[in-house]
């Protein structure tokens, strides 16, 4: 669905934002693009969405080379959820959605009320100016704008930013639903939980280069120490022991009265990011 080869981009002569990145995204896949600020995430997304031109290398979407230009048909097949809820604040949620969706073929539009309901948008704000809505409600309208046109490729930039925990869970559920429908999702984020829970594959980006790319599970497994930490009670005392996983094959190899917990000492996705890039995501 998305094919990127040796992509380079410079804002100025001596400021290279992308240094030859290469990846592909399969149809119906959720692909996570992870990196700290200034790593080139947004630049890559802008190239893929046709906003930035003048790049090196090749980029194709829907099997079509983007250097040939962007047609209205191309834009009708993609949707972008920006990090901030960009909306006409003097218009209501419904009027915003009516306005933005009026550029798309009617045959691909979903029902505004239905999409807003799915996003748990408060009914009492439906016809009030967006300026009176909270950030979370505005983010729901932005998400509705992205979903209402039934895109084939959905670009999401920090989709859960500005949402409370229940809102974040709801958005993840909706993103999963979109994937099940066959939508390809390109997720740009700092949020490791979103990446870990949602993405089929992730790419770690640092200084305009991809440092590692695989499924979150494999990235963690490849770097796992293969050990587990066992917490247990013995003669009324709370104890802890670290074991090789292979030692557990024949059962718990030490005396104990009660096992409290067994934690795999698998690294987190964030640990992996630091290991591969030498940087933290929120730097």
């Amino acid at each position: 669905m998305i094919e990127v080869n040796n992509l380079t981009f410079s804002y100025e002569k001596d400021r290279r934002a992308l240094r030859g990145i290469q990846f592909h995204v399969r149809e119906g896949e959720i692909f996570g693009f992870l990196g700290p600020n200034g790593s080139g995430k947004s630049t890559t997304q802008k190239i893929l969405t046709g906003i930035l031109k003048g790049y090196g290398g090749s980029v194709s979407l829907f099997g079509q080379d983007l250097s040939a230009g962007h047609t209205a048909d191309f834009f009708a097949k993609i949707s972008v959820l920006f990090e901030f809820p960009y909306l006409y604040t003097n218009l209501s949620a419904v009027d915003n959605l009516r306005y933005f969706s009026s550029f798309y073929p009617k045959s691909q539009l979903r029902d505004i009320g239905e999409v807003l309901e799915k996003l748990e948008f408060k009914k009492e704000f439906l016809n009030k100016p967006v300026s009176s809505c909270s950030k979370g409600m505005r983010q729901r309208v932005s998400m509705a704008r992205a979903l209402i046109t039934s895109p084939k490729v959905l670009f999401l930039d920090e989709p859960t930013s500005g949402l409370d925990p229940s809102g974040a869970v709801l958005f993840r559920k909706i993103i999963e639903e979109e994937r099940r429908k066959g939508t390809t999702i390109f997720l740009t984020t700092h949020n490791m939980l979103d990446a870990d829970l949602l993405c089929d594959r992730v790419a770690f980006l640092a200084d305009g280069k991809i440092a590692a790319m695989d499924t979150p599970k494999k990235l963690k497994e490849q770097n796992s120490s293969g050990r587990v930490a066992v917490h247990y009670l013995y003669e009324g005392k709370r104890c802890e022991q670290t074991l090789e996983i292979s030692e557990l094959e024949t059962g718990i190899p030490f005396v104990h009265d009660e096992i409290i917990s067994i934690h795999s000492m698998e690294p987190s996705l964030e640990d992996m990011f630091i290991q591969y890039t030498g940087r933290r995501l929120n730097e």
Partner: protein
Amino acid sequence: MRSFLVLLKKDFRMMVSGRFFLAAAGSLLLYTLFIQYIVSGNGLTQLKVLVGELLFIEIAAVRFLEIGSMLLKEKQMGVVRVHAVMPFQKRLFLLSKLTAFLLSDLLFAAGLTMLNAGGLEAAGIMPAVLLQTAVLSLLMALAGFGCAMLLQDFKQFSAAYAVIVAYAAVPVFMAQDPSGVAAWINWNPFYHIYRELKNAFFGIHCAGWVYYACTGCGIGVMFLLAQAAFYKEMGKEG
């Protein structure tokens, strides 16, 4: 065409919510009262001069500010970037704004001329007045669009506004004392537009193909510059 009409409808809606039409109607009324008060008994010639001057000032100063404030608001809301990924030709975003402001300027010019010059007299000079109004309106709207796209906030825009409007209004002030008109004024394009607008009120057609070629090229070049500024804004970070 459908996309253009959608954009145009939205721009008119923004103009209504920004009370642009209310302000234009207020200006029309105030100018008319002022003109009628000043020229009572002084004849049609002075009336036409005054109408020409006020129309020029209104289009040059107020429209630049209005298109700028509307765009700065859209920039602030971030919606310019959303339009970058919408399925229509991006230049329509600029064309719809130009059309909306041009139509409102033509309506204003027609109203001011009709109310002050009278129906029969106005009908004779109207095409020429509207043509010169269109030239000025397009140039000022494009300048306002470009400045709003390139400048960061209203403070910077206000500084640019002061410079551009002072430059555009020089011919009107100099015309108050014709003996003081210096040769360099010929290099100010607004001088020629002002002169042609004034001539239009007297039914004088002295502008040749050079004038129209220059203003046409000017509008074309400014359109391309405004469009480039628009593309730059779309590619900016959030």
